[in-house]
């Protein structure tokens, strides 16, 4: 494995322990459109962009016409009912600060809505620390498609810095590998280890990753 010079970091399940909260917010949002889907079933889909996440649970026409509205309702429910109970993973924000202090560009690349990303960064006290962020609002197709990573590399000129993606879901790995980007998997998001078998490396969480995987970086 090479020596990496830039990080494309996922948000939910990496910086924040928020995957369960998102699943519950999706369950509630879908129920408002007449679909009863349990949070535990939706939990496996967290990490995908909204349009992909709802694919198995709604009618195709409904997804086409109402997919954006469902995403907006989920965001509203998450921000008003769940976000206040979400906590950053211990040491995760500090690890990002140390990466930045070491001169490594760190770009957040998330499938979440812009308002969720901005509020989450404030909660983790990382608003002015990151090199920048790319969110679902910036791309046509969010994860598991590669668009958030591709745009992040292009917009922040990271191609020559040997970037690596860091994420907690199989969808991060799939998106990264579509464009030949290596991916480090974090186990903090609660997905089974087997679903991250194809990742280039695996760590318990972001704090642990930086303390024991420092040698992976330039």
């Amino acid at each position, binding site marked *: 494995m090479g020596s990496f010079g830039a990080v494309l970091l996922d948000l939910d399940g990496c910086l924040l322990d928020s995957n369960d909260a998102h699943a519950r917010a999706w369950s509630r*949002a879908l129920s*408002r*459109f*007449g679909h009863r889907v349990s949070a535990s079933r939706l939990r496996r889909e967290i990490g995908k962009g909204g349009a992909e996440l709802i694919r198995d649970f709604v*009618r195709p*026409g*409904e997804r*086409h*016409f*109402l997919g*954006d*509205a469902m995403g*907006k*309702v989920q965001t509203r429910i998450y921000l008003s009912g769940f976000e206040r109970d979400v906590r950053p993973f211990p040491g995760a924000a500090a690890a990002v600060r140390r990466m930045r202090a070491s001169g490594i560009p760190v770009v957040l690349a998330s499938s979440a809505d812009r308002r969720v990303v901005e509020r989450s960064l404030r909660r983790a006290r990382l608003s002015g620390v990151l090199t920048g962020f790319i969110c679902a609002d910036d791309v046509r197709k969010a994860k598991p498609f590669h668009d958030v990573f591709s745009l992040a590399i292009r917009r922040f000129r990271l191609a020559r810095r040997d970037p690596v993606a860091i994420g907690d879901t199989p969808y991060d790995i799939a998106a990264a590998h579509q464009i030949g980007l290596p991916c480090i998997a974090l186990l903090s998001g609660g997905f089974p280890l087997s679903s991250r078998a194809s990742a280039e490396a695996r760590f318990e969480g972001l704090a642990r990753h930086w303390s024991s995987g420092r040698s992976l970086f330039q």
Partner: protein
Amino acid sequence: MKFDALLGLHGIVLRSDDPSRDARRWRRALGLAPPRKALGGVTVGVGPEFFVTLRQAAPDAPPGVEEIHVAVSGLRGAPGAVDALGGRMIERRIGRIRLVVREFIAEPRQRPRRRARGKVGARRETAPLARRKGNR
């Protein structure tokens, strides 16, 4: 009218001399949920993403198309109020037809009804001719 993308036609309002009869016909043809009173007429559909509403034709307005509802994304200049279908909309009159351009942003006020069970058109194929005629 400014918006980002045209998603497609999602609803139509028709004037009919017998709205209940025509609603049953639409329901049978497309295998839709039972008709209900909504949008100022008798409505059949699967949810906000597709509906057909039949309104009673007035003497001065013969049967025909009354409204066409089109869904878009990124609609600009629409009033903030959310309508019963969960959208913000702008209306234009084009000849005798009212064009409604809508961006869905929220859940519908009325929970969508489930689609009718069974195959599309199955009931029409199995119902006796006399009964079918009686339904019309």
